[in-house]
């Protein structure tokens, strides 16, 4: 399941340690990302940002000539794109809580390659979901920009709630999304007591995307825990 439109995104990678730059570069390139620029300090990062106009920035928190948070604020002035932090400091957790500063996500070192890739892909999917022409499922395709499902040539519109739920499931494609997270996505901050409504919505989504809604293959149930959307690779 690779989405080509994401692999062309311009990524700016900032870390003062060459070995770590090499590692992240290697992980991203191996996956198929092609437009990656690197910088080793704030100055280089600003120059690079002006030149290459990134669509995602991955920043280290500690840089030789400043910190990642200040760099983020400067970068955000040049354009609104998502930012992912890499940090070696567990105690910085508090700063990231709620991402009040505008960071989209953070990863604490050390990390597994698949963890980094998942975070990068999730952020890109969320930020650029409207550019994706179609999400391919086994028996249908989802067009998020038009909020509709195409099944056997037929265009079926999605309701707002169905669109919200599918967006969250797609962002975490291949992973389980808990019942609570889905309820929160659809009904907001106090999402308790909506389990039955959620089940009803899931059933209606399945009627739209599945060949046989009672034997789902794309939107599967993980008993007691949540649901998983399985996207087909091209």
């Amino acid at each position: 399941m690779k989405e080509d439109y994401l692999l062309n995104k311009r990524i700016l990678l900032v870390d003062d340690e060459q070995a770590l730059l090499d590692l992240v570069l290697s992980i991203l390139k191996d996956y198929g990302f092609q437009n990656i620029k690197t910088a080793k300090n704030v100055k280089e990062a600003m120059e690079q940002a002006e030149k290459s106009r990134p669509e995602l920035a991955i920043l280290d928190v500690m840089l030789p000539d400043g910190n990642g948070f200040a760099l983020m604020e400067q970068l955000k002035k040049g354009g609104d794109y998502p930012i992912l932090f890499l940090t070696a400091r567990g105690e910085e957790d508090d700063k990231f809580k709620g991402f009040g500063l505008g960071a989209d996500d953070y990863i604490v070192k050390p990390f597994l390659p698949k963890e980094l890739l998942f975070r990068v892909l999730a952020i890109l999917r969320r930020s650029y979901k409207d550019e994706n022409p179609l999400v391919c499922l086994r028996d249908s395709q989802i067009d998020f920009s038009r909020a509709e499902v195409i099944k056997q040539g037929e265009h079926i519109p999605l309701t707002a709630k169905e669109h919200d739920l599918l967006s969250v499931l797609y962002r975490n494609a291949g992973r389980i999304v808990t019942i609570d997270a889905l309820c929160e996505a659809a009904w907001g901050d106090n999402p308790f007591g909506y389990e039955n409504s959620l089940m009803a919505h899931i059933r209606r989504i399945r009627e739209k995307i599945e060949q046989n809604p009672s034997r789902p293959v794309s939107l599967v149930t993980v008993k007691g825990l949540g649901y998983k959307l399985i996207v087909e690779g091209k």
Partner: protein
Amino acid sequence: MKSIPKLIRRFMGIMTLSIILLVTLNITFFAILFVRNASTFSPWDMADHAAAALQLTDSGYSLSDDIMAKLKEENAWAVLIDNDTRQVVWHTDHLPDNIPLQYTLSDIAELTRGYIDGYPTFTGTAQNGLLVLGYPKDRFWKHTRASWDYGFIADLPRNTMLLLAVNIVFVFLIYAAVDARLLRSIRPITNGIQDLSRGSPVCLKEQGILSELAEKINKTSAILQNQAEQLRKKETARANWIAGVSHDVRTPLSMILGYAGQLEASETLPETERKKAAVIVRQSSRMKDLINDLNLASKLEYDMQPLTRKQENAVSIVRQVVVDFMNTNIEDTFSFEWKTADTLSACYINADKDLLKRAIANLIQNSINHNENGCVIYASVDEDSTSCRICIEDNGTGASDQQIDRLNKTPHYMICDTNTTQQRHGLGLLIVKQIIKGHNGTMCIDHSEYGGFKVILIIPKSIYPPP
């Protein structure tokens, strides 16, 4: 402080008792003295006796021998004054020189009031005259016959009692005033001692009668504060040291984990090489967990990670942790079963969400670490009227009764203050214990009905109803 009024009450009691005792003692003493003095001897009786014993014989007047002996013993003298002539008609042998032998009426009146030339005199009526008994000058206390006012004598008992009462009241007032002063100077000192026991710094004014005590308390406080400060510094230094080391290990470990992860997933490497890479990944992941645990454990131990508790749904927290494991950190040999009843969609507790997630994740990681060949991990949330029970168990190798007993009872090496080389349980469970303690809950380790290890976390339910 409750002991001060108690102390005063006791002092007052003792004083009242001692006053009553003293008064009683004095009255008894005087009564005994008075009764003894009064009953033994009366000079008036003696004069009457002597007058009666005086007899007129042919050879003149004579006194019986025993009376004479008594007079002699007392060193007293006697004269008999004739009724008609008012001349001394008889006297004892050793009459002082300046006693007159002729009396006028006014002399008689004078001597019956007490004295002849300073000698105390007592009179008795004889057959033909007046017997005057004289004693040495210092035999009796001299007092004029003051005519006491009747009212004065009549009111004497009442006035005495009144005087006594006024005296007692005065004594009490003086005592109370002195006590109040003492109390005023004691109060800051007792407050200071209370503050000391609470560990807060104390600075008393070093003046008044107890200034020395205040000075000592100030000194003690300074010593205690200094010690606490030293301890805090030491603990902070230790926690910072651990944080520093774990920070420095993170970047190199990133390389190991990152490249090994790539090798593990590489399609060009043969299967055997990929398996070796997988071992590196698994072991470096354990190191990563260890670093995170070490850092958190030291922070929790030294109270450097304050809990930020909010009302949270325990079911949703446990579900998220289980799903996080299923989404990332899991090998095929491990699987999960969600055992929470469908009817329980929420169980509200007052919790620090991140730390509680960490505790549950540690329990799951523990099951994974101790079952190399894989196992099924069962997660459930259950509730009773007061508490929420989170249970993580597995069907793996489990532990012996002895091991479980030790896990439940022995402290971890990080918080154990005796030197030990004995291998204790991992940091993972210590952190769970610390976190659950911070939530006023308990952790129980037991055998699982599925054959493996079982840990139950019992956390009090939130008092307030859900929003």
